[in-house]
């Protein structure tokens, strides 16, 4: 193929000094320009449809200062009696939800990986499951499960798990698809059954990705579970909700600081654990 094209191309080329090199062809330039144009048009259209009310925008700094003065000093006495337990519950929801999602997402991720399950219909169904899990926000999942199981941590845990399936399953499936074929081929040649090819061929290759995904998702879930209480699905969000409804701003401040502290700690833990695992 290459051998046939080269002489013809060489004959058509002008002298070296007259050859012009451009990164993009005219069609590519036009396409890139159109993309920029669409982006600018989209920004202009969105600014118009947001309908900013100038008076509200003008006194926003004043409002921020007002809110902060009402929040400060934070009501620390409130921490031991309610906030602490709710915070621990939030961590439980995040951790259990993540563990549950790992268990549920692994089979779906495997079904979505074309190199493991070479059946396009099965891959598509698995991908559909993953997309539907992701397309529903945690809060909506929580509303659903609060409807089924009543308010509380169980609904929150399931909401976190079901929202995470899509995320974990998609990334796990992609990691499986990127696994090198060579070692798998070697195990196949040795007569290894499917399960052994999984545990000896695929798992060692995808395990760093898997733990990385799991930690990252746990990190996200700590933050997400903090708001689930707004719809009654347990955790610190419930404390925040009641403080907000009663305009107890110093209590709101304690909750927000607690959430912030937990998120920072989660970040540090994840970074440290990842460094050791991978």
């Amino acid at each position, binding site marked *: 193929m290459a051998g046939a094209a080269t002489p013809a191309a060489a004959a058509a080329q002008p002298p070296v000094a007259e050859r012009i090199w451009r990164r993009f062809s005219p069609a590519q330039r036009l396409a890139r320009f159109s993309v920029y144009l669409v982006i600018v048009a989209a920004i202009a259209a969105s600014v118009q449809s947001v309908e900013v009310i100038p008076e509200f925008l003008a006194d926003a700094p004043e409002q921020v200062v007002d809110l902060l003065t009402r929040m400060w000093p934070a009501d620390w006495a409130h921490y031991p009696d309610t906030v602490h337990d709710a915070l621990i519950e939030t961590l439980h929801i995040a951790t259990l939800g993540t563990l549950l999602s790992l268990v549920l997402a692994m089979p779906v991720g495997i079904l979505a990986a074309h190199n493991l399950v070479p059946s396009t219909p099965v891959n598509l169904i698995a991908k559909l499951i993953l997309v539907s899990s992701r397309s529903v926000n945690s809060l909506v999942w929580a509303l659903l499960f609060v409807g089924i199981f009543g308010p509380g941590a169980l609904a929150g845990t399931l909401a976190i798990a079901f929202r995470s399936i899509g995320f974990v399953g998609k990334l796990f499936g992609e990691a499986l698809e990127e696994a090198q074929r060579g070692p798998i081929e*070697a195990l196949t*040649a040795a007569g*290894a059954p499917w399960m052994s090819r999984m545990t*000896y061929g695929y798992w060692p290759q995808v395990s760093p990705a898997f733990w990385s995904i799991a930690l990252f998702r746990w990190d996200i879930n700590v933050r997400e579970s903090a708001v689930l209480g707004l719809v009654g699905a347990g955790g610190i969000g419930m404390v925040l909700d009641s403080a907000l409804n009663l305009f107890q701003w110093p209590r709101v401040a304690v909750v927000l600081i607690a959430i912030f502290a937990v998120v920072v700690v989660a970040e540090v833990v994840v970074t440290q654990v990842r460094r050791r695992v991978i």
Partner: protein
Amino acid sequence: MLTLKHLSKSYVAGTPVLTDVNLDIDARGITAIIGASGTGKSTLIRCINLLVEPTAGEILFEGADLARLSGKALRRARRHIGMVFQEYNLVERLSVMENLLSGRLGYVSAWRAWRRKFPPDDIRRAYELLDVVGLTGFANQRADALSGGQRQRVGIARAVMQEPTLLLADEPTSSLDPKTSVEIMELLTEVGRSRGIPVLVNMHDVELARRFADRIIGMGDGRIVFDGPAAALDDATLTTIYGGKGWLH
């Protein structure tokens, strides 16, 4: 031992990579397949253990036609065919010992293998083979910490762990420097001879093939164009195999 009858393979219909290959491999000795790139050497060797499924033909091995086998029967047959690869194909993040034991995966149940509960005999054989391939003391090293030559030694040991009755090697030295290539070929032939396992090896280095093989098969354009003892390989036959003359001498 191994008989190929009218073996053909086309990846795309109408453009055959292998055409009507007939071949008998004796119970002993080193057979080298040589030929230019893209003449189907690799496809041929991969057809034998059905890593590549042939389009037509028979692969008679230990009284069965492998081309007709599938599922468990195929896995059982594959256990007796060890394979060494150009890119070693070790599981990089596993230890040398685990890579060797992975040669036993066809014999040990997935559940036992997962818990690393291999029979004591397998462990003993693995240690013996590590001595044979010159990697004593490397058992707990991770495979990705090894050099190319060391990895290929692990590759050979893993293949022998299967207790094969036939060894296939697909360009085992192509990723290695000339000195290491010779050492790997020495090891491969020595392992084959001492254990009475016939070795079928693909290579593009004619000198290496001459030096180590008892029998040489030349391939050109998906067909066998030469089949004879290494001594019979002269310039005229090399020209038939590779075409052109300028590259000789």
